[in-house]
């Protein structure tokens, strides 16, 4: 059949046998889940049995794109890496921009599924429907930058996109990232460790194939509408300062995680701000493929002890996790640390978090100089931060323990009460107590563990006051107080926030264009219009919402099958203690259980957080209900 928007091919690579098989997508699943992480969830539901060791050859990893990936949709520069995570043991998806997703499609595939384990290091070169498994022994031990250089030279295509692991992935650091296009990270959850466990050093992709458009004139009209909406996008500074503009904003609003979440303001925030970054170190702004916003930073440090060659980033999360969270106010050192994380292939969020955790352990005497090769680990020590990154990636000294993530390290040190994570995923650089209680809920319930972005910026409704086209679908309006917990329809509202984000994720896009008034951003309605005209498929906006809900429920079922229940939708103790400083002094999470009740009810899940049979039936997921034993 003819595919529009989709390439219409899924590539399966079994590294144990060295075989490549190419299949059309399963049409019924394509209709139900539309693509990207939704379609990948179904493949992993079918293909990875419960309780499989994430780092064994039985696990699979999917490079997933959606129909709008690589199209003219202004947010379509994404791919999602989908897998069962070694960090959390449950569902994980990590989004990355750059050009890899679009180039994978130009090479002929919507999805690349990798399974098994190669007996020697290899990389994949995918071009115009062909897949080559190539020798990579000479690349093992090399950083992402050099790996990318060598591969581009070997394949002879300087425009190809390379997604690679660094030393951290080879050493199966549980939060190792896959880095594409030298500096864009599919960061969270340890996808890089899975590639490392499979001896897969990299995937290179490019091609000359058409992305076919079902109704070109109508599609062009929908893209023009999208461009016009984004001309009015409310975060007008985001292209000027990137996500790093948040440093000053969150600090002023008392929700900038500082000193491992002990404080919500940082007296030296100005010194690590996006404004200063733009003034002193920014070379240029760099956009992902097809993105009209271009929030990406590209910076270097030209002199001094932190000299760093030009590199993507640092983004807000990196700046705060390796900065304020460790009380580090040396922006040049953060740029260096960001470069190292990219080259070693590590998630900057988890890396910053385990370092801050270790600093707190040192302060409390849980870790001593003896544990740290005779060195101290004090708050704000930028040299220690940078040195620890290398140790973690190489699993040397204390790095060996920190490399397994904060949950595992805390168990090792007997410091469980200090560790900040949910489901094993380290808290990122947003403070729920000061930003919004819905964010606290999301940290607890997000499928991949504590996350501010999976599947959406949780606070868009109650802290952002953004309607984003959702009133048509029943969004309560006006939004409730951001610090309210139960009794304000937050479960109902958050369900819609989730579905909005999930639409973006299953279509293969970036969620950054999604927040504003109905005429200021990429709404579900606009996504519906782009999807219909691109693919030629009859799908109403309601059906698009339904597909998103289906996908969100399937991912929940994936975790339920792994044994997760209500008790796992949890927050660290600290979140229930009052903030000691700033404009939100005294605030804390109170009734998470009540919020869970409202959220589960809105989604049609039972008290344990399991989607009921009726809910799954309503979502056309009876096959899933059946294999869950319902």
């Amino acid at each position, binding site marked *: 059949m003819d595919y529009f928007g989709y390439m219409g091919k899924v590539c399966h690579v079994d590294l144990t046998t060295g075989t490549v098989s190419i299949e059309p997508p399963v049409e019924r699943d394509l209709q139900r889940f539309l693509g990207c992480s939704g379609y990948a969830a179904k493949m992993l539901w079918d293909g990875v049995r419960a309780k499989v060791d994430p780092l064994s050859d039985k696990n699979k990893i999917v490079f997933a794109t959606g129909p709008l990936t690589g199209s003219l949709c202004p947010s379509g520069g994404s791919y999602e890496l989908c897998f069962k995570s070694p960090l959390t043991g449950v569902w994980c998806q990590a989004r990355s921009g750059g050009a890899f997703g679009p180039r994978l499609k130009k090479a002929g595939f919507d999805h690349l599924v990798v399974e098994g384990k190669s007996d020697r290091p290899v990389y994949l070169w995918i071009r115009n429907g062909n897949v080559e498994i190539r020798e990579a022994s000479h690349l093992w031990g090399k950083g992402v930058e050099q790996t990318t250089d060598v591969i581009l030279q070997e394949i002879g295509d300087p425009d190809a996109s390379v997604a690679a692991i660094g030393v951290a992935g080879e050493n199966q650091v549980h939060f190792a990232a896959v880095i594409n296009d030298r500096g864009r990270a599919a960061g969270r959850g340890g996808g890089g460790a899975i590639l490392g466990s499979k001896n897969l050093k990299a995937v290179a992709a490019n091609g000359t194939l058409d*992305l076919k458009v079902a109704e070109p004139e109508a599609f*062009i009209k929908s893209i023009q509408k999208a461009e016009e909406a984004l001309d009015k996008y409310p975060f007008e500074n985001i292209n000027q300062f990137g996500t790093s503009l948040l440093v000053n904003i969150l600090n002023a609003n008392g929700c900038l995680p500082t000193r491992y979440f002990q404080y919500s303001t940082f007296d030296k925030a100005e010194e690590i701000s996006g404004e200063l970054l733009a003034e002193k170190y920014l*070379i*240029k702004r*760099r956009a992902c493929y*097809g993105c009209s916003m*271009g929030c990406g930073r*590209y910076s*270097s440090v030209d002199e001094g002890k932190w000299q760093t060659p030009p590199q993507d980033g640092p983004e807000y999360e990196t700046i705060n996790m390796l900065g304020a969270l460790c009380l580090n106010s040396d922006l040049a050192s953060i740029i260096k640390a960001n470069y190292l994380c990219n080259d070693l292939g590590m998630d900057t969020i988890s890396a910053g978090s385990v370092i801050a955790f270790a600093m707190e352990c040192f302060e409390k005497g849980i870790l001593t100089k003896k544990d740290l090769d005779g060195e101290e680990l004090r708050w704000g020590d930028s040299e220690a931060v940078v040195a620890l990154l290398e140790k973690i990636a190489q699993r040397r000294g204390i790095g060996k323990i920190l490399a397994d993530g904060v949950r595992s390290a805390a168990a090792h040190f007997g410091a469980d009460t200090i560790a900040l994570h949910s489901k094993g995923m380290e808290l990122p650089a947003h403070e729920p107590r000061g930003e919004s209680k819905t964010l606290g809920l999301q940290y607890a319930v997000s499928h991949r563990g504590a996350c501010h972005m999976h599947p959406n910026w949780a606070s868009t409704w109650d802290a952002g006051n953004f309607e984003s086209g959702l009133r048509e679908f029943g969004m309560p309006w006006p939004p409730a107080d951001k610090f309210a917990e139960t009794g304000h329809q937050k479960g109902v509202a958050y369900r819609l926030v989730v579905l909005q984000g999930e639409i973006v994720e299953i279509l293969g896009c970036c969620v950054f264009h999604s927040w504003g008034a109905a005429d200021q951003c990429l709404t579900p309605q606009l996504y519906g219009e782009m999807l219909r005209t691109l693919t030629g498929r009859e799908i109403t906006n309601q059906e698009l919402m339904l597909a998103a809900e289906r996908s969100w429920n399937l991912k929940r079922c994936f975790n339920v099958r792994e044994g997760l229940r209500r008790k796992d939708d949890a927050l660290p103790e600290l979140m229930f203690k009052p903030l000691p400083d700033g404009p939100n002094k005294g605030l804390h999470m109170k009734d998470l259980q009540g919020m869970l009740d409202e959220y589960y009810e809105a989604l049609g899940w039972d008290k344990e957080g399991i989607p009921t049979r009726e809910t799954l039936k309503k979502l056309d997921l009876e096959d899933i209900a059946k294999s869950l034993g319902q």
Partner: protein
Amino acid sequence: MLKTLVAIPERCTGCHRCEMWCSIRHKGVINIERAAVHVIRQLPSIDDPRVCLQCGICIDSCPKDLITRNKKTGAVEIDKGKCTHCGYCILSCPYGMITFDPVDGHAVKCDLCGGQPECVKHCREEAILYMDADKAARHRRDANSKRDRQESKKPNIRQSKAG
């Protein structure tokens, strides 16, 4: 006055939207390899949009005389329907701005979209501009001068050896 394209690399973020718009307008699909505008990424930090100058060097190269100047827009256009894919125009272009279409084999060359270039309309960064010819000429003189001055600063190894 006639207009022509001018690119300003300092403004380009490397998003490739100009190429995508070019391909959907001319080919009805999205495929930057089929576009007549090209964004080149130079490591480490330059994204460089390259546009056809409409200089007309290619006009004489076509053995079938299928390349002509559009008197209304000033664009140098290829009569694609009759193109025999011989490649002489590609050889003739000193700027590498004519390419073979990887799908249908035709020569691909910028035609200024009949006077309303899509790449310009949709570049939010204003990295490609559609300028009056005399302003564009001024811009090209400045850009060439800047480039030549930068080049003259580089050590010329062969010369110093001879000296």
